[in-house]
């Protein structure tokens, strides 16, 4: 092998630093029409006002309201394309008894962001993980079939 060129190592490393930077919470509701957007705006206002009444005031930079479907991504961008929805929220989900299969689903969203069509976004919170479904079966069972045991736990005691 010949003709290979190189350079001295740089004096620095690229370091991906993670640090504690507070907390965040996000929630999502679907609000139907008629007057969906007006109602959604009112709902957001109610949330901020109720929080403020309870001593939790958030500044503009500490809070977020988006009305997805009513032009979130390109708000404020002048456009001639008024006929097309500004964005679409896609919700995908799976369920079943094979946990590995459910986990596998979670790996399929990020590739759409990194190597799918341009403009796919909204994925900063990590991939979906399998969470257990707690089933609910209200039933009447004959008393002799139920072995019962009561445990009382007191504060500071055992």
């Amino acid at each position: 092998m010949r003709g290979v060129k190189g350079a001295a190592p740089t004096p620095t490393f690229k370091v991906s630093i993670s640090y504690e930077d507070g907390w965040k919470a996000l929630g999502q509701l679907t609000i139907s029409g008629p007057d969906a957007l007006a109602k959604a705006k009112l709902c957001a206002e109610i949330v901020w006002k109720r929080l403020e009444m309870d001593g939790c005031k958030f500044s503009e930079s500490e809070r977020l309201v988006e009305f997805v479907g009513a032009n979130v991504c390109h708000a404020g961008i002048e456009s001639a394309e008024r006929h097309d929805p500004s964005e679409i929220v896609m919700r995908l989900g799976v369920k079943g008894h094979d946990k590995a299969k459910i986990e596998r689903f979670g790996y399929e969203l990020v590739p759409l962001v990194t190597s799918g069509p341009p403009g796919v976004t909204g994925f900063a919170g990590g991939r979906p993980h399998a969470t257990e479904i707690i089933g609910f079966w209200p039933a009447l069972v004959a008393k002799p079939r139920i072995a019962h045991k009561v445990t009382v736990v007191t504060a500071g005691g055992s």
Partner: protein
Amino acid sequence: MPLAPLSRIAMARSGDKGEGSNVGVMARSEVAYRFLKRELTGERVRQHMRAINRGPVKRYEAENMRLLNFLLHDSLGGGGSASLKTDAQGKTHGLALLRLVLEVPQEVLDATPAP
């Protein structure tokens, strides 16, 4: 002069760089690239994107790829995991820029195949 959206003569792709986004614009022809180098200045992009980006815009050129690359310095509401925005990665910023309507000379349109 005919009006045309940037998407008629260019493609774009974007993503996050810290608290800002990186918007790459690739011209669909050599003629379109020469036109865009002249018209699509950092200031023009800053004006168009001002509702999204609160910071300055810096333009870089990559001649061999017919590419203009724009760094929007404050466009992600804190960026990465600190952002509350739907588009925390600026993935839609390229498409937002492609909506820019320009006065494009007919000879540039003629020399540039439509998408």
